[in-house]
């Protein structure tokens, strides 16, 4: 038809592009070969700088070229005065910026930029922070840039407050970006360390604890509330919230020592799994240090909370003798004594199981009132979103922290809802529920049923009788060997109804 514009066909365009690409490749290969020749000849001149610049601009991921470039720059540096060195490296920064536009996730570029900053006589950190901001505004999850930014912040000594404001801004623009939340979690514990912050001191923030002062913490809770009330299905805020709620670390200690004349055996339980032969343990029997071989309860476990050892033959076998045993945990500067009296076949020493702190480590840092208020907020959300798994799970954790026995019924009901709304993870919820049931059982000194897994076996070191029927157990873990005092005849009900046990690991008791 007349009057129409004639346009090249796609085949024609393809052909042109192909030719263009071939031409480009030829040029690239030629330049590359020249550069390599120059490098092996040890030439460190401006021309090499120019050539590598051209090559890197079209392919910023060519690590050898960056390396060569560093050699050239180091050489040129020796020939110039400081002002010119500054100029040299500043133009290098401009060049890297251009390369980052080609590939904002190039390892070579970011690494080279870090290096240039170390060589620059007067680094301009504000400019670098500005670059990071621009980069992150294009891709807020560019971890190369996050990394680089952290190094810039460290070098330039940006204050924690400023950085908190930076995360405020990023979270404000998109609260689903966990990078920003996580960065915030690394900043908060530093807030109190600022010199002259009296509020932190009065709020009881001692430098020893990895805790955030309460005033700040309340602000953080509010921030997280805003996020999960706006979008309860976004996990970033929930993860952050869980981190806020629970940062207590259990005191590291020897929780139980058990000694038995039969077999002249000692079993020790620790508050966390460890590798006993390298943990600096010292066993003192009647004032004399003993050289013993620590053995794990199961060969498959490298780290374990329960360790065994045999005392030298004949050392405690005589029932008419009284013995004093002390285990020293040198690494942690703690110890536990255990006395084996005349006429006793065995003896143990441990703290009472009803100790409030026993299982509550995960969420127990805060004052009850704060946790109570948080529980109320979450319940408010649950009313609006009865099916939300994140909310349900958080409520369960809060209830555990506040009063595990008082909230037991609600907790179990929430677990049921969780399994219904999130069937993909129902086994995870079953296991978690079992863990809590065992904890409750230990606390109540009662029985637990309907378990899918058995947790806290290290707490059961002294248990002698166990009935595993009426549970949902599929297998027993290697940790089952921690039940060092179990009398085997009480295991008979193991295979009875309602368990789906397929494998039974031989216990070495």
């Amino acid at each position, binding site marked *: 038809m007349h*009057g*129409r*514009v004639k*346009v*090249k066909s796609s085949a024609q365009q393809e052909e042109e592009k192909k030719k263009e690409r071939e031409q480009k490749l030829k040029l690239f290969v030629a330049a590359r070969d020249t550069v390599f020749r120059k490098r092996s000849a040890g030439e460190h001149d401006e021309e090499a700088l120019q050539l590598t610049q051209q090559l890197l601009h079209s392919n910023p991921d060519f690590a050898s070229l960056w390396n060569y470039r560093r050699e050239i720059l180091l050489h040129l540096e020796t020939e110039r005065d400081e002002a010119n060195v500054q100029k040299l490296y500043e133009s290098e920064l401009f060049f890297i910026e251009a390369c980052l536009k080609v590939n904002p996730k190039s390892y070579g570029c970011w690494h080279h930029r870090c290096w240039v900053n170390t060589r620059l006589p007067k680094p301009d950190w504000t400019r670098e922070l500005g670059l990071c901001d621009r980069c992150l505004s294009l891709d807020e999850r560019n971890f190369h840039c996050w990394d680089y930014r952290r190094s810039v912040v460290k070098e330039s000594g940006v204050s924690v407050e400023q950085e908190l404001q930076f995360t405020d801004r990023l979270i*404000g623009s*998109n609260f689903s970006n966990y990078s920003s939340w996580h960065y915030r979690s690394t900043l908060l514990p530093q807030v109190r360390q600022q010199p002259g912050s009296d509020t932190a001191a009065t709020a009881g923030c001692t430098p020893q604890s990895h805790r955030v002062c309460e005033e700040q913490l309340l602000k953080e809770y509010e921030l997280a509330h805003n996020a999960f009330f*706006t979008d309860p299905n976004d996990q970033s805020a929930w993860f952050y919230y869980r981190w806020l709620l629970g940062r207590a670390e259990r005191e590291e200690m020897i929780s139980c020592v058990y000694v038995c004349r039969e077999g002249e055996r000692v079993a020790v339980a620790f508050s966390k799994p460890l590798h006993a032969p390298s943990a600096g343990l010292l066993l003192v029997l009647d004032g004399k240090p003993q050289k013993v071989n620590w053995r794990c309860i199961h060969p498959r476990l490298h780290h374990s909370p329960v360790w065994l050892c045999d005392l030298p033959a004949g050392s405690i076998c005589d029932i008419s003798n009284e013995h004093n045993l002390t285990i020293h945990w040198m690494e942690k500067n703690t110890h536990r004594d255990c006395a084996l009296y005349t006429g006793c076949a065995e003896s143990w020493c441990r703290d009472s199981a009803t100790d409030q702190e026993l299982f509550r480590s995960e969420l127990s840092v805060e004052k009850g009132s704060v946790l109570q208020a948080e529980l109320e907020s979450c319940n*408010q*959300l649950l009313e609006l979103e009865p099916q939300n798994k994140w909310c349900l799970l958080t409520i369960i954790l809060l209830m555990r922290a506040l009063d595990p026995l008082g909230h037991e019924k609600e907790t179990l009901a929430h677990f049921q809802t969780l399994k219904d709304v999130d069937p993909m993870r129902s086994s995870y919820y079953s296991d978690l529920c079992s863990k809590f049931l065992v904890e409750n059982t230990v606390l109540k000194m009662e029985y637990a049923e309907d378990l899918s897994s058995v947790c806290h076996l290290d707490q059961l070191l002294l248990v002698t009788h166990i009935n595993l029927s009426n549970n949902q157990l599929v297998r027993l873990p290697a940790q089952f060997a921690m039940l060092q005092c179990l009398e085997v005849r009480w295991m008979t009900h193991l295979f009875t109804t309602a368990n789906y046990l397929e494998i039974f690991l031989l216990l070495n008791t």
Partner: protein
Amino acid sequence: MAAEDLPSQFDVVILGTGLTESVIAAACSRVGQSVLHLDRRNYYAGNWASFTFNGLLSWIKEYKNQQEAQITESEEEWRRLIDEGEDAMLLNSVDSSISNIEVFSYASEEDEKEEDLKPPEPHHTVKTLSEETRADSTETPDLVTSDVSTDSELKSHNKEEEGAEPEKEQRPSEDSIEEQQPVTKQEEPPVEVQKITYQKLLKEGRRFNIDLVSKLMYSRGALVDLLIKSNVSRYAEFKNIGRILTCRNGKVEQVPCSRADVFASKQLTVVEKRMLMKFLTFCLDFEQHPEEFQDYSTKLFSEFLKSKKLTEPLQDFVLHSIAMVTQQTLTEEGLKATQHFLRCLGRYGNTPFLFPLYGLGEIPQCFCRMCAVFGGIYCLRHSIQCLVVDKESNRVKAVIDSRGQRISCSHFVVEDSYIRDEQRQNTAARRVSRAVLITDRSVLPSETDQQISLVTIPPVDSSSPSVRMIELCSSSMTCMPGTFLVHLTSSSCGTAQEDLTPIVSQLFHVPAISGEEPSEGSEETSKPAVLWIMYFNMTDTSALDSSSYFLPSNVHVCTGPDASLGSDYSIQLAESVFRDLLPEEDFCPPAPNPEDIIYDGDAPQAEGSGFDQNNEEDKSLSEEESHSPSISAPAEEDTGSQEPPLDTNPTSEE
């Protein structure tokens, strides 16, 4: 140029360069139709046009003159061009779509002494040209004296020039003034220096691009889709609207509409946040959940909102600022409007809207440019006197232009304002009330002042219309640094001034005399001051369709801009006219990249086919009419922006 220079035959003659006409021109030209595109005005885009400040002042003046002038029609000239069996149908020579223009200037006069001599005239309308020239001749010494008076003054002045957060300094609260005064050694408060005078507005007048029509582009609306589809988008640049504000109980506040807004909102409780998000999420795919709203299908959207347990502020937000419907809107329509808003979110930013840099007037020009690239011929200040209608077929055979040349065509497309009342079924049309304000600060100052705000102002009572306000910052290239350009739009009850004055005095400080400062401590100090204001009414003919006119079948009328926020109506109209014209053709297919166009200079071109002929015309025309379908040149010089190269004429690339 002599009239004979125009070819005597075209496929399509288009009269009026508004958005609809320009899109039709581009679409026709793109598929190979020969297009003659005319406008009687000396600028592009008709009622869609943007003006510099000085340009607007001249436009106002011309408009006033035109209404007074008596046009004498010389009938004989064209009578002899009408043959037997033909009828002549006259077109309107006067544009009556704009009315009730009122202009007030409140910016202080630069020269203090002169001010003293001359009694202040708060209500003087329309600055005359003589006033302008006086201003131009005196402004240089004035500026010097004011700038160098003290060091500190100079400093703050510079700061304002850079556009670096002058707001905080400009708006000292009651307390801070009292506290600061003993500290600052200055004798004058800094506010004095940063005042923008009328002379400065004139001097910086080229930085303004003041739109007659105030609209935004829905990021998934018909206009944006068309710009992308046709590749016309390459001729313009755009800026996101930064925030959506509303006015509740006399207070301007931000409307949380995106996820990030809701999260960051300090005015909503967490429960409100959840309720709002829940409601908005439902609206996104409300068709999937008929059970939620079917009980309300015959009821009002406002009642439905109540039933959803949204608190009162949330109901207001959704009704007025998100759905942007009235109290009388039915549920399903309200849901659809909400859904459209939400679907537009996030495509280009946190709000659903874009605004073209340098003003909305750019958009029709971009389409004109596309038309010209594909061979369309443009003439400004060139109109059609009458149509030549074949009596038998009742079709237009030809047109007679304002120079008395007869040009035959198969289709005639015309903007509504050229149609005479005799051809109308009824002459009653709706009107839109408009106000354009130049202010000294934002209605809601924030950290980043360089953002465009849409402010929805709910109706005072259920009978009055809601008012839409768009506040443009200087980085939108529509006003000079240190000022904001505010557009108010509502459907008319009375004149624009009657309709909009209440809102203006509620949200802005309107000085009683030029340059007057609000008394310290009064409520007025917290409001932006009005420097200059213009009211006018524009006819809204969008309700009319082909049945409203008595016209030959191949005459297609394009109604002017409508009152709505988006331009969807105009684009849909353009497409439907194009379908009438060329039912077989594709509507604005993607334009090829310039480098992919083949120019076979050697091959002999078929007669009337190539660009050669048309481009020659185009060039020669542009010499005389000093026009080219280009992005407005002055703004470009000023800002050094990165516009695409102006000349994409194929001839220049050969």
